[in-house]
Structure formats: C-alpha cells, structure tokens
C-alpha cells in the first residue's frame, strides 16, 4: 500500500516527533508514505476559508493535484489539514462551476489541474479501518498503563454528514479504541467533544477567548484525574501544550498535562525514546508521566 503523506505546517515545523513516530510506525506496517514534494499549507480551513474562499480552495486544490499526480490517496494526521483538503475536495465535486473557476486559476498560475481523483484520509481512520486494531497491537512492545483524556478535536469527525467516519460525533469511540490498545485508559470527562478553542482563527484573533475554552477543557480533565492528553491534531496539540502554559499564566493555575499526538503515544508503545518523539522540546514536561511508564 502506498499513500501520499501530507505534512501540513504545525507537525513538521513545530513538533517533528509526531512525524518521526508516524514514519517509523508506517514503515513497520509496510505502508509506504510517499512525500508530497512542494506541498504547502493546506491552507487552514477556519482561517483562510474565512478570508477568501477562492484563494483557500485554489491552494488546497493544488495540494490535492499533487497527490493526484502521484496516483495515491492523501493521508494527513492533522484535523485542520484533513478538514481543509476534504472540504475543498467536497466543494469542487459538488460545485462544477467552482471547480472550473479554480482550475482556471490553477492553469494560469501552475502546471496542475484538480481532477477529483484522490481521496483525503485521516491517519487515525486509516489505522482503524485499513490496518485494524489487532495488527496495530502487534507493533507494540510496551504496555502504557496511564490514564489519558482523549480529545477528538473538531474537524476529524465533523461535519459527520460529509466526513462519514462516525455516524454521530456526540459519543464516538474510534479514537478511544485506538488509544486503549496501547494499555492506556481513556477516561471519560466533561465536555470531551468540545473544541480546544484554537480553531477558526480565534487563537490569532482573541487569545483570551481561546484560553477560556482551553481552561474549561483542562478543568474537566483535572477533575477526571488524567495523566496526559491524547489528540490527533497538531493544532490542538499546540493549543494544549503552549496554550496550557498560557492558561497557567493567565489564571494562576498549575496544569501540567503532557500532550501526546496519537502517533507519539504509539511511539511510546513501540519503545521509542522521549527525545525521538521530541517530548523534551514540548513546553509541558512529559518526564513525570514517562517515568511512570518506566
């Protein structure tokens, strides 16, 4: 199996340990991750989609066209990239006039055309549906006996009518199942399906509102008594890592939940070191929780 690996921005440009773990995992699973040479920002759905739909859709369609030229489906492990590329693909398939408009701009500015021949997929969904929990479990050498707060994020499952991974986003299980095969326990907590607060350009526009969201989530996680946060979106990852220190500074709290992308959690289960997973470069110190594992 081959797949076009879409990196996006935050994972590869801020938290490369997520990329490292993913490359190692897929190598073990014998799935070839093919680099999308010259891919750009997805671009962010809530931000660029909010500014100018045509610019947003053209840049996204260019990324889709790169995968089409490679003859492969796209895999991303960022909810934002997934949302943006998937939504653009959906828009251009539903709206032929928009497709023609975007292709005209692409013809004028690049040598690429959007044809609608690639499928946009999220890493978590590929692991769940194509690989399966049993085969995944075989990759792991270490039992992770920690309690974690699973954060789904917004653009992984929603809008369910278009995405179709789960029928409803009110009480999904896909991510909890993917987490629990490592031995980690997914602890229920209040407002589990709520947004981290960073999306839609809100983090850039009004950090206070964003932090108010994040604090609500962190309060609920603290109440549930978790050791760490696990998510499948580098932007949520950034918000829970950097944002957690910002919440602490603003509200005088002392939250200290290490943040782990699913790929990093799997990295730990495969026995990779904290350095390889770049936990040591994150703002919230993961050492206390990692010691618990040792």
């Amino acid at each position, binding site marked *: 199996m081959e797949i076009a690996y879409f990196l996006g921005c935050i994972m590869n440009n801020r938290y490369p340990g997520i990329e490292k773990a993913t490359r190692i995992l897929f190598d073990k699973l014998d799935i070839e991750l093919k680099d999308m040479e010259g891919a*750009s920002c997805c671009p962010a759905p*809530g*931000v660029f989609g909010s500014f100018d739909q045509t610019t947003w859709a*053209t840049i996204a369609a260019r990324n889709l066209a790169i995968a089409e030229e490679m003859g492969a489906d796209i895999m991303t492990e960022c909810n934002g990239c997934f949302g943006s590329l998937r939504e653009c693909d959906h828009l251009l398939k539903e709206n032929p006039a928009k497709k023609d408009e975007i292709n005209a*701009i692409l013809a004028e500015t690049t040598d690429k055309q959007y044809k609608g021949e690639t499928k946009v997929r999220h890493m978590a969904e590929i692991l769940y549906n194509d690989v399966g929990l049993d085969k995944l479990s075989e990759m792991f050498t270490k039992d992770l006996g920690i309690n974690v707060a699973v954060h789904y994020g917004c653009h992984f499952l929603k*809008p369910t009518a278009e995405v179709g991974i789960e029928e409803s986003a009110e009480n999904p299980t896909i991510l909890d199942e993917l987490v629990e095969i490592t031995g980690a326990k997914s602890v229920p907590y209040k407002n589990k399906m709520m947004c981290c607060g960073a999306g839609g350009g809100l983090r850039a526009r009004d950090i206070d*509102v964003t932090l108010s969201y994040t604090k609500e989530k962190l309060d609920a996680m603290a109440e549930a008594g978790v050791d760490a946060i696990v998510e499948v979106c580098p932007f949520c990852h950034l918000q829970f890592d950097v944002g957690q220190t910002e919440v602490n500074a603003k509200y005088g709290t002392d939250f200290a939940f290490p943040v782990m992308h699913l790929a990093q959690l799997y990295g730990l289960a495969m026995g990779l070191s904290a350095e390889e997973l770049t936990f040591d470069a994150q703002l919230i110190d993961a050492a206390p929780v990692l010691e618990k594992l040792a």
Partner: protein
Amino acid sequence: MSVLDTLKSLIGGAKKDIDKNLTKEAESVEEAADSIQTSSEEEIEIKSDSETISEEEPLEAEAPAEEEIIVPVEEEEAPEEEAEEEVEAEEAPVEEEAVEEAVEEVPEEEVSLDEEEESTDDKLSEDEESLEVAVEEVAEEEASEENEESDNMTLLKENDIYSMDDIDKEFTQKFVDAGIETVDHCFQCGTCGGGCPSGRRTPYRVRQIVRKCLLGLREEVVSDPALWMCTTCYTCQERCPRSVKIVDIIKMARNEAAKAGYMADSHKATGSYVIKFGHGVPINDKTKDLRKAIGLDELPPTVHSHPEALEEIQKICTACEFDKLIGFNMETGELE
C-alpha cells in the same frame, strides 16, 4: 409596510419575550406587595414598615448590572430586621418570605434575557423602575396600570427599526450562489446557540447571524466583531434539525466582512505568512535543529524545500487578489 411588520415581528420576537418576562416579574413583585399589604391591614405599624422598605429601595435599585438584582434583595433583609425590632416580631418573617419568593423568580427570568437580548441594561433599569413603582404604590396599584407599564416597553426606538435601506438582497443571494441555500431552511429554533461553546462566553449569537444573513442585513453582519468568535467546531451544524450548513454560512459571511475591510491585523499577519513562506506556521531554526537531531531532513519536503512551489503559491495569491485583500505589498514582501 407588510415587510416592515414582518421584520419587526421577526427581529422583535426576542423583545416580546422580554416583555412577557417583565410582566411576570411585575406580577411576582405584586404578589410580594400583596402579602405586605395583607399584613398591613392587620397591623397599622406594619405599614410604616413597608414604607421603610420603599425608602430603602431607590438606593439599591441604582445598581444597573443584572446580577446585582439579586444582591439588593439579600441586603434588603437588613433594614427589615432593624424594622422588626420596632414592629411586632411575628409579622416580619412573613414579609421576608414573600419578598424573597418574589425576587427568587427574577433571576430565573433573567437567564432568558441574558441569552437573547443585547440591550439588557436599558431594559433592566426600566425593569427596576417597575419594581420600585410596584413596591411604592402597592396598595393602590391596579393590574391594568401594570400592563400599561409593560406596553410602553414594547415601543421601539427609532434605531430599533429596520428599513428597506438595511436590506441587501444580493448579500443573501451570495449564500445561495455558493451552494448554501440551506440558509433559507432555518426556522430559528436556537439549537445551534444552545450547544455553541463560543456563545456561552462571548456575544456571538449564531442563530441571530444566520437570520440576519437570510434577511440580507449585510452591514450588521459584516461589522459585528462577534462574527469572528466562532472556532468552526461544527457543534451547531451537527445538531441542526434542518441541516443548515451553519459553519459555511459563517465563513461566507466572514469572506464578505474581509472584503468590506473588517479583518484583524493578526489575521492579515497569518495570511502574509502563506504568501511569504507557503505555510501559516513556517519553520524556524529551533525546529530545524530538532528535525536534524531525530534523523529527519532539516527542511521538510514541502514548499520549504521547493522555491518554485513557493512561487506558485504566490502567483495563486496574486491571481486571487489575496495580497490586496490583506494589504500585502508583493514588491516589499511585507504588509502595508
């Protein structure tokens, strides 16, 4: 005229709710006052007691904030207690209970005020006036007079009324043309706002924005800073019983707001990163080192490794006039 009436009834819907609430509040105050009156018929001295309350009232009623409505009542107990010593001790608890009961109802009604109405402050001061009046003129007050008081509050001020000049049909058409014809399916149930995480901490009222988009109230929609308080989390859209593509509506409205010049500097900056680097979050030296240390290529195989790809992104931005939209000068490579 009929359009105006429809508009008034649609947008003024919330106001009617408030009037209902106010009437209820007035009724409950009356209840309290009635019981005061009942007791004053039995004991003449009590009458002076109720006067004590009404003298205290204006002072406390000056507080404008809604939450403080609860406070004055708790404080009200103090003068009553003092009065208790002057009057028969047995009678006092009855009044206290009655007043408390009446006031307990006020905050409950306030919740709906909070949710739906922006100009709560005005309403509240009027509201307090009616409280005051009710207590002072309890004995003579008739139900009809109470209604008159509420009727006055239904009068719209000049700037509360929409005219055809506020309506931009093309604005609504933009949503339909963009494939979001579901904007027309909304029946204003409010499920969207009920689950909205932004609505419970900011003035963002998603149901109201959807309505305004359908009515074509362009200027009100695009100039509202609350439009930018949505994180596009899709909770509203997921729960919408009419399958309205709410997030698409919000994003399209923001597109129009951006065109009209309502774009935050911080957003222009984010936009400029994509023109400059091809990424909203470009690489930095720290991450380059980190990548190298764990055996990844120092630069990812994205536009960062392909200058010709960055050129394409820049051409796209120019062709779409995104540079002009955010005020980016391609010559200097900076925001203006």
